[in-house]
């Protein structure tokens, strides 16, 4: 543990001295590099998904706008399709209060879920499933990502 400037205690993992060795390989270019790379990319996809959730909750319209394709549609179980414009309007509204953040926190607490990510070529799928029912019978929702234009 160490004490920060404000007096708060923090966990210290490690101390590293780093030297830049060159340019990084563009994101997504290592999808065929074996199990380790696959694991990394899956984790990266889940991180993006997590940020998506946070952006929607807290009203980060710019992030959601950058993430979603213009042709994006969110389809509910009843068949209703929600266009990108409606989603961005909803995100903007979420940013005006913590109402959605509280709702989501409450839902997640009441419905514990697991996350799976798979990537095949330029397409990634993130699946959320009920921990109670498992990934084979308890799929709650899925999001499909298309890796476009090296972004």
């Amino acid at each position: 543990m160490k004490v920060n400037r404000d007096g708060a205690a923090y966990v210290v993992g490690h101390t590293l001295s780093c030297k830049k060795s060159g340019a990084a390989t563009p994101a997504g270019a290592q999808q065929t590099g074996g199990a380790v790379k696959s694991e990394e990319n899956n984790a990266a996809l889940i991180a993006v998904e997590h940020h998506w959730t946070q952006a929607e909750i807290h009203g980060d319209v710019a992030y959601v706008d950058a993430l979603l394709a213009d042709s994006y549609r969110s389809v509910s179980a009843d068949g209703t399709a929600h266009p990108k414009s409606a989603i961005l309007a909803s995100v903007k509204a979420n940013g005006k209060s913590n109402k959605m953040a509280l709702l989501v926190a409450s839902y997640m607490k009441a419905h514990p879920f697991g996350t799976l990510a798979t990537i095949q070529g330029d397409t990634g799928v993130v699946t959320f499933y009920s921990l109670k029912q498992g990934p084979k019978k308890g799929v709650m929702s899925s999001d499909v990502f298309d890796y476009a234009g090296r972004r």
Partner: protein
Amino acid sequence: MKIQKLAVVALAAMVALGKASVAWSGPRPIQTLEYFVGAWNCSGSFPATCRAISSNIRFERDLGGAAILKHHDDGPPFSYRAAEEWVYDSAQKHFLASIVDASAGMRTFSSDGWGDGAFIWNSGSDVVPKQQFVYTKLTDDTMRVD
């Protein structure tokens, strides 16, 4: 996860990473993180045990420049691997990071940005005990991570 999907079971949707661009009136805060972009070879130790450690860290631009993606891989005998996405939250006016490690743990951090030559991430309320990562710029191609 789509928020609208939280209350209902939903079907698949199509998403393109960074398909749209965002108009900004001035330098984007995320551009202050350009320093990190690239591959870094790191060596150091765990203060608590003095055990030596080596790590490879890669930073890449993502979402059309709206985000920085970081991969952190410790070398043997350690097996920690993590993927991090760093973005600027224009609503909250601070940086946010999601860190996912190989054991599927997920943590959220925030930062006010560069200050005194260092970029500091502080963990969110979901992380107990609190964690902090300090990236100190030493030169254009050397840094320290605490």
